């Protein structure tokens, strides 16, 4: 008794396979992805139909018309691929060609076998220096933050990523040991964290909720369980949470 006719229902099956979309750039990405999927599904169907009809139909002389059979379809495909590429490039450029705005919230993400840690720079907006010699997870310093650096005093390290909705985030990604893949499917976000490098990505979370952070780059035997939780909360709730975290961190 569904109002959607049977055929249309099938059309909506694949979109439902995409997880919810909770970022500002996500809907445009989804739209482009679905456009691609439907176009290529149509092309695959068309090619198979041509193959099947060609096999079933009675024998005729062999096709010789290069222009109609080869060049015209190739020209159409070239235009199609070029259009899709240009569209994709614009989305890519919008996401990656420039950095975050200075007003963006800074958060650092560090991947290590097999956990993600998140650091907020505190009121001074500067991350304290980390030294690998000082890394001591047992003593509560998994990132090796140098206590003698004045900027490190107000840094807050968490194992859960909490972000305010509708504010741009400037993430700096690092890895301590091996390459990890920082991925939040529901924010349509993925970037490897590479030892020795600090990689910036920026995005704006929109819909409040609880989402999965995965590791998508094979990083050792605990790869499958290297996950964390992202909580997107309204801005005022975020401010309260951060203040509480910072108070708890201060002795």
């Amino acid at each position, binding site marked *: 008794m569904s109002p959607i006719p049977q055929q249309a229902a099938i059309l909506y099956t694949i979109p439902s396979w995409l997880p919810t979309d909770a970022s500002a750039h996500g809907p445009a990405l989804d739209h*482009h992805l679905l456009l691609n999927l439907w176009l290529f599904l149509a092309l695959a169907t068309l090619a198979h139909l041509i193959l099947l009809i060609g096999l079933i139909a009675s024998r005729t002389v062999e096709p010789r018309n290069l222009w109609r059979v080869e060049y015209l379809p190739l020209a159409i495909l070239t235009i199609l691929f070029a259009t899709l590429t240009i569209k994709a490039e614009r989305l890519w450029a919008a996401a*990656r060609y420039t950095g975050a705005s200075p007003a963006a919230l800074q958060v650092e993400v560090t991947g290590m076998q097999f956990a993600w840690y998140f650091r907020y720079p505190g009121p001074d907006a500067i991350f304290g220096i980390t030294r690998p010699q000082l890394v001591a997870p047992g003593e509560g310093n998994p990132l090796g933050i140098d206590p003698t650096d004045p900027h490190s005093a107000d840094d807050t390290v968490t194992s859960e990523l909490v972000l305010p909705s509708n504010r741009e985030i400037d993430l700096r990604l690092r890895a301590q040991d091996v390459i990890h893949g920082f991925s939040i499917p529901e924010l349509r976000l993925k970037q490897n964290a590479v030892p020795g490098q600090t990689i910036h990505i920026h995005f704006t979370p929109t819909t409040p909720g609880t989402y999965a952070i995965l590791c998508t780059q094979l990083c050792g035997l605990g790869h499958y369980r290297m996950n964390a939780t992202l909580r997107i909360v309204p801005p005022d709730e975020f401010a309260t949470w951060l203040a509480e975290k910072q108070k708890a961190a201060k002795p």
Partner: protein
Amino acid sequence: MNPSNPTNPQKPNPATSPLLPVPYSLFPRLTDHRTIGLQYLALALISVTIGTLLSLLMRIHLVWPAWSLPLHGPILPEDYLALVTIHGTIMLFFVLTTAPQAGFGNLILPAQIGARSMAFPLLNAASFWLTALALIILLSSTFVPGGSAISGWTAYPPLSAVASAGPGQALGMDLWLASIALFAIASTASSINTLTTIIKNRCEGMTWDRLPLTVWGWFTAAILSIIAFSVLLAALLMLFCDRHAGTSFFLPAGNLVNGVLRTKGNGTPLLWLHLFWFFGHPEVYIAILPGMGLTSMLLANFSRRRVFAYRTMIITTLMIGFLGILLWGHHMFVAGLNPFASSAFSVTTIAIALPASAKVLSWLATVWRSKPQYTSAMLFSLGFVSLFITGGLTGPILAQPILDEYLHNTLFVVAHFHLIMAMAGIFALFAATYYWFPLITARSGKPGRLMSEPLGRLHFWLTFLGAYATFLPMHLTGLAGEPRHYSQLTGVPGPAGLLSPAGHLLAATLPLNRHITYAAIFLATAQILFFVNLIRSFRHGTFASQNPWQATTLEWHPVLHPNAPVEASETKVVVHRQPCEYLSAPATDSFLPQWIETADTKPE
């Protein structure tokens, strides 16, 4: 034709004498190119069996995690990753690289260009035994302390560079490196051999535009092999030095793995990614180009048609080879590359879709309204076209960095390359086996045999359905966000020990994953038919005539045929036309072989 050369009788015919004649005579059997081809095929058959069984263990573990492997116990996360690593390595290198290129290349290529042997027979034999040694070393890594490497077939450092990074990263990783290094040396040598043979040993009249498209596939793949494998070998040596000689090509200072701190050095893992994928992407064309050539030839043969746009097919083969070495960066869109570089690699990747599309158009045009003959070989070639289209069309999607940002390292990518490489690649190998079986089984004085056609057709349909049933749903679990290399999908704990959002995301893919596992078991089981057919036909298959498919190419020539009815020394092979020429009359014997048939060479 005139058997002797009246102008210069002293000049040795390059088509009849190998370039390196002295040691050749010492090992006449071991250096025979047909023997070596068969040895490579046997090695690939063993490898594909092991690789398939390992993939089944992975699939079974994913949906029944509690299942305990007999004689081993439950599959631990490190066991799962070792399975992933060996499965990928063995399939990529020891099946998809060796079987089409060194296997069927050795078996068929010399005859197809009118040559009596490969250019360097001794080097050829050495390449095979090195490859066999590489396989033994790879498999032996299972039994060393810590087990086989767990860093996947791509072996990204620092995971692969530091012994403390996890199980298998000590001796297991060294064995992996040794195995692949030997394999790279063997492949380079074997490709130099292939290239030299094609350039020097072609018979009279075999001009470049008369070369069968299979030969063009082997030729282009050989060039790619030499370029790609030498870079891989350099990268492997660098990684070995990072592990044991204190260098820092791939490791930055301050790298802290499992309590082991690296204080000096200024390398970057990204260098490995560049070097590895500079090899890794051409590698997929090395695997698929001979299959593309064979498909063109078989579609034409069984349709009794010319290959549509023959010269364009030669050009697109070379274009795919050339573009194939310019687009490795599409594996690195989210690896930390400059985003402008990603845009450039995106364009070169999309560009390769055009010669690939031109090939598909030619295949469609060749069979268009041709009423072909549906032999098993033809069915597998048609299956190749279908899988190539379905698997290939997701390529442009993954070539767009913004879409790859979502799909990278998900099951969507696994679906893409398994359809196009694993399945289309294997379909070409099946087509080659059914088609060339009479040449595989023929000996001098003993005619070849045919494989059973009814069994072959059944094998095709089950494999075709199984391939789609297994790999199509992976697109959906990938779209749902399922990452690769996850040894567990249910009950994945979060940092607090409770079921995390990640656990929910993964568990949602479980129903489809169950289906994929059933389909994979079905697909693997269907291959028993192939083995039954193979073994049965070796002993009891019906005898084939000298040219059972009425093929136009020279491997069926009465002199070059393994069971030559004509005295080889008396007949000179001369080529008169392109392959795949047919008269337009609908009579069955309307094919025109590349050679001119004289009265005494006509098949009975």
